[in-house]
């Protein structure tokens, strides 16, 4: 579940866990209705952002906690703890106090603790935010591996797009308490279905305009920045409809390089930014609208275009996405 701060993703997660109330609706976990179950009966363990490990217990006791709440034979509990600890590479840390652990170790203990009751689902609330950046990438891969080997669902909340795209099988994009779009990372990235998703994910250019011609599989739209074409997907539009054309910045090229593309506008280069292996170019149309272009370039092989040069930009219609009228 991904979205900006305050969109409700954490609240939703907590509602699933039973830590927040709801006014209406149902929650079903594998066909079982858990809406009326109190939090401690849901078996929807969560990995907290702060890890929430119990300070007065050591690693082993923290992990075993869930099992010790109901009657279990001591030997059985010990066995299960060792099993989980092995899976999370914590065998050597079992006797440590929580205060002696590093961030990454704490996270693994938190995960182990959550998994010991063999839940059907695991909830994770921005678990990487307390870790160092270089650790995050490693943990992401490990987490993904873990999820696949366990075969259970992970519901992962984050505001970081890269995290979401690298690990998710399905992404739920949320904004201001509503779900904007649900889909695979590819869907979200290349085929946004709402304006918010188009603006929030990736780097897209949005052109608002009015339909002036309807064709076989394309429509022609007149925008302040110029006349352009777009592919329609689900339904044709009618003359006069207000629409938005989404053009990914990576799909914008200089007309000099490729003259075959159908859409062209003129713009002036105002600035650019090196981002490692890419360069983002910021251009301004004659109407004062900002357009972005992303090229895969490195410092050595950049185009070195002077600022304030006048350029012609182009893109293929098939790379565009058409959205309906923008809802304010």
């Amino acid at each position, binding site marked *: 579940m991904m979205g900006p701060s305050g969109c409700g993703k954490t609240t939703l997660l907590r509602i699933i866990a*039973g*830590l927040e*109330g709801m006014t*209406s*609706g149902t929650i079903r976990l594998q066909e079982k209705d858990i*809406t009326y179950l*109190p*939090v401690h009966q849901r078996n929807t363990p969560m990995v907290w952002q702060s890890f929430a490990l119990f300070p007065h217990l050591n690693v082993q006791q923290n992990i075993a906690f869930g099992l010790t709440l109901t009657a279990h034979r001591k030997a059985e509990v010990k066995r299960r703890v060792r099993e989980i600890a092995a899976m999370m590479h914590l065998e050597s840390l079992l006797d440590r106090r929580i205060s002696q652990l590093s961030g990454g170790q704490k996270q693994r203990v938190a995960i182990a603790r959550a998994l010991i009751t063999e839940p059907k689902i695991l909830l994770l609330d921005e678990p990487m935010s307390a870790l160092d950046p270089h650790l995050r990438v490693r943990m992401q891969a490990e987490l993904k591996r873990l999820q696949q080997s366990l075969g259970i669902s992970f519901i992962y909340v984050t505001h970081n797009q890269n995290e979401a795209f690298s690990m998710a099988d399905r992404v739920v994009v949320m904004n201001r308490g509503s779900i904007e779009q649900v889909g695979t990372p590819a869907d979200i990235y290349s085929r946004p279905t*709402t304006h*918010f998703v188009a603006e929030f994910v990736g780097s897209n250019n949005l052109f608002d305009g009015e339909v002036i011609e309807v064709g076989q599989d394309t429509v022609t739209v007149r925008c302040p920045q110029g006349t352009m074409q777009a592919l329609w997907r689900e339904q044709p539009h009618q003359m006069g409809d207000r629409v938005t054309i989404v053009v990914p910045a990576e799909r914008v090229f200089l007309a000099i390089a490729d003259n075959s593309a159908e859409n062209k506008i003129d713009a002036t280069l105002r600035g650019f930014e090196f981002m490692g292996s890419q360069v983002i170019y910021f251009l301004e149309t004659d109407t004062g609208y900002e357009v972005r272009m992303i090229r895969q370039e490195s410092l050595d092989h950049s185009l070195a275009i002077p600022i304030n040069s006048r350029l012609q930009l182009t893109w293929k219609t098939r790379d565009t996405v058409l959205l309906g009228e923008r809802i304010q």
Partner: protein
Amino acid sequence: MTQKLPISTPRSPARWLPQETSLLKYLCLAPAIIYDSIFFLLPLIFLVWIGFWSVENYRAVPGFSLSNYLDIFSQFFTRSRYGFAIAQSLWVAFTTTALGILLCYPFAMALVFLVPERLQRLLLVLAIMPFWTSYILRLYAWQTILNNNGLLNTLLVRLNWIKDPLQIMFTQWGTRIGLLHYLAPIMILILYLVLRNTDRTLMGAARNLGATQWQTFWRVVLPLSKPGILYSAVFGLIISLGDVLSGTILGGGTGQSILGKFPLFSAIILNEYAASTNLPRTSALATLLIGIMIVILMTGFKLAESEQ
């Protein structure tokens, strides 16, 4: 097009939620509430009520009459001199509290700003330590120190600083010393905590803008510490008004003060209870004392609010 969560027909959500009422809440609060109601509220209400009983033929009669209060006020400044006692108590309480704040404030300042960080905690513990010894025994010790032939006087005469011993016992100065010694640790603690939390960046900014030490104190530190001073004042007043021991052991019961040789109101109440001749009237006196304290507390609240 935005997709919304499917909403089924509204029903009540999961029953046990952390924020909502649970049996545990009542079970946890009940013991405290019940105990306070029976052993705190009840006795106090009862006490106030007794103050409205009347006395017939030397026996207390339940009822509701103002006879005790009329009786008290009719002899306020004459026969039983209750009025003078109240005046004496208020006078001692205010002077002791003022003195206490004046003396403890610099002490707390020195602790916060002069003493190195690591030593502060140790010195604070030492300063609070008197609180941990028996109040009554401390007063006894003060007695041996302040007596006419006690330590202080013996020392001063020996050093030839004075000719005749200072009369401290049986005056309200004795009471004040005893009270001060009782109040000081707490006042120091309150003022220490408040001063410690003074925003150092504000002080640094003042110095940076050219303020002298005195100005920084007067215009930054002092105003910010007003809540602490207020708490200390209210605390000091209420404790002093209700105190019996200092006044009796060091002040001799009817200690001499600028106002004259009057007893403290609290001592009167204590003695009248010991004699237990007129329970309703003594209860009325106690209620009177409660009234005075409520006035002080309310004033304190009002002042604290206006500070906000």
